[in-house]
């Protein structure tokens, strides 16, 4: 492994053009992640056609680097503006934004920088050491029933966070699941709820929906506060967390790395579920549960460690099985295909150089988060000083472009603004936007894997639940649901 890593490092830093691409990916991912209104997916969608002119290793490496640094960058907007750069940063906003409102933005961003780097580096190391055995284990033990069970568990966790009541939490998740049914059904390809619009046959695209629910709805909330005279400019603070403060959360970091890595390894689940589950676990293990959601640093640490820990793990199903774990890894498959390559077990035999350049690049990209992240944090915090009436049109313009670019459809811009209005109205009624988005993301995956699982067991539920991992995950989901309902009834005030 060490020889391969050194060979990958030499190939990465031995060519000035490859170094240039690496640096571009690091800075581009961080910037696009940290600019409210666009995300790493916007950058990736714009760059996709250009990768045809690069070497295969350079193209895949560029996307892998953007994935690592963009996942961290999205935390900045989540903390400073309550606009998660991507869905995996949504739980970061639960405590990150209240910390900003309390004048602790520097501490929140500092914790996000450090924990993203730790989670990412740890994940990259495990990825390098264990891709092959883990892929073999996953092939044998993880099938559609297990993935469906994990989706159920994830939705049970998501239903208990972010909404005003447990009922509204479940309604939020179910709204997301309902939106996900628009478009072709994943088994028979039958059009559902497309209302005669051919563009809707492919379903609601994630990027415009996410931009609408997170970025546009936040603009509308702030507009309402401005109009009603309740808008308060967030306080800027440059104080970073002390070493002692971070050391106190070492258990949370370790737990989040494990949760993030285990979620990330499962195809189709990715970093979003990792962040939600890690946040949920942090709350479950905490003695001061009531402090979560009010600006507790452990909330930021848990979400940010886990989503970056999932980035390395997400490369395992992609590289070993050819299964993408999310939108960005799906674009990586396109990069492979542009160069007549197919990700999967053969890549390890046919292109080991490519694999190790990508592994080395991800390792160094996560280290760069620490170095560049700390340097740029003070600059980024100054974004808070820009009056919101000038920041809002900039965010809306960037979001419009981000929504349009992915598919070149004006319909997507319409969908984004519609999602923005819907998100605004639902937020003001106490619903959870992250819950809706998680339902939207996991809906199709859940349905597809449920259908495949039922076909596998010939519609026999007893066989379905006799699979140990599946039954454990379903039980965990039921317990999560049961405990949240109990807590809801016990603490209604």
């Amino acid at each position: 492994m060490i020889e391969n890593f050194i060979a990958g490092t030499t190939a990465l830093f031995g060519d000035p053009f490859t170094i240039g691409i690496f640096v571009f990916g690091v800075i581009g991912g961080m910037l696009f992640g940290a600019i409210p209104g666009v995300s790493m997916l916007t950058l990736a969608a714009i760059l996709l056609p250009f990768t045809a002119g690069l070497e295969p290793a350079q193209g895949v490496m560029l996307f892998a680097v953007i994935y690592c640094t963009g996942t961290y960058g999205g935390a900045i907007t989540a903390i400073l503006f309550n606009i998660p750069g991507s869905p995996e940063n949504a739980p970061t906003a639960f405590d990150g934004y209240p910390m900003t409102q309390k004048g602790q933005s520097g501490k929140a961003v500092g914790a996000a920088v450090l924990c993203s780097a730790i989670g990412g580096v740890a994940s990259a190391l495990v990825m390098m050491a264990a891709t092959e055995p883990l892929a073999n284990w996953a092939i044998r033990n993880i099938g559609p029933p297990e993935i469906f069970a994990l989706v159920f568990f994830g939705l049970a966790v998501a239903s208990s966070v972010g909404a005003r009541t447990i009922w509204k939490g479940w309604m939020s998740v179910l709204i997301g699941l309902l939106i996900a049914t628009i478009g072709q059904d994943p088994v028979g390809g039958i059009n559902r709820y497309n209302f005669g619009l051919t563009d809707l046959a492919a379903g609601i695209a994630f990027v415009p929906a996410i931009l609408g629910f997170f970025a546009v709805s936040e603009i509308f909330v702030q507009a309402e506060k401005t109009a009603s005279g309740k808008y308060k400019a967030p306080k800027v603070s440059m104080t970073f967390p002390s070493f002692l403060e971070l050391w106190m959360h070492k258990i949370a970091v370790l737990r989040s790395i494990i949760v993030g890595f285990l979620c990330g390894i499962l195809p189709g689940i990715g970093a979003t579920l990792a962040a939600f589950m890690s946040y949920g676990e942090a709350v479950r293990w905490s003695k001061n549960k009531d402090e979560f959601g009010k600006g507790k640093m452990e909330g930021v640490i848990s979400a940010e460690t886990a989503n970056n820990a999932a980035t390395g793990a997400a490369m395992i199903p992609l590289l070993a099985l050819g299964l993408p774990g999310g939108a960005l890894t799906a674009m990586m498959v396109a990069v492979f295909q542009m160069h007549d390559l197919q990700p999967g077990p053969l890549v390890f035999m046919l292109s080991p150089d490519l694999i190790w350049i990508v592994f080395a690049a991800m390792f160094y990209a996560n280290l760069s988060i620490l170095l560049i992240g700390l340097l740029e944090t003070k600059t980024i915090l100054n974004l808070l000083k820009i009056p919101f009436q000038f920041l809002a049109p900039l965010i809306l313009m960037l979001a419009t472009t981000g929504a349009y670019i992915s598919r070149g459809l004006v319909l997507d811009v319409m969908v984004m603004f519609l999602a923005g209005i819907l998100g605004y109205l639902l937020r003001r009624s106490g619903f959870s936007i992250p819950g809706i988005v998680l339902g939207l993301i996991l809906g199709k995956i859940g349905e597809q894997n449920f259908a495949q699982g039922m076909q596998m067991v010939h519609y026999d539920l007893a066989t379905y639940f006799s699979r140990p991992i599946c039954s454990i995950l379903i039980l965990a989901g039921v317990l999560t649901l049961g405990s949240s309902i109990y807590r809801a009834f016990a603490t209604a005030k």
Partner: protein
Amino acid sequence: MGRLTRSHLIEAVIFALIIAIFYGFSFQFNQPIEIYRFGATAWPRVVLLLLLIATLGNLWFQHKHGSATQGTIGQSDDEADFSEPGTIPRMVAVLLTPFVFAWLLKPVGIYFSAPFFIAAIIWLFGERRWKAILLMTVLIYVIFIGLFLVILNAPLPQGNVSPFYDFSAWILTLNAKLQGL
């Protein structure tokens, strides 16, 4: 009525309508799938059933406890405040302006409509100094053009109605000349 308010009932009626409409439309694709016993309708209908249960549960909770919060985790927003006069018309304008902009993208294109949209949003957010509006509109437009057109060469909607299309073509020609320098 318990602690139910009119807004609680409106919320429940809206969700009931959504469930009814989606259930009604589910008959449009109620076809069997040879390889899958449950067909294309089973999943959406289960989701609708669960949504109905959750809506009734929510209504029951509101009947018992009003708008109280429960022991959920994470950040939830404070309630909307429309007590200040003029808030509602201004919010309606804020919500509609992006739609007008999106609707104009196809015929007018983004290059022509963007400055008007930017200025409108700044104004709707309460800025009344026309010099500041003008300056910030130009600055944001330049940032937008510089990032997406000059640096990233991203394909953006150009419009299909003259003279707006000609304006977009002129911007693109300028960019091509700039790239050639």
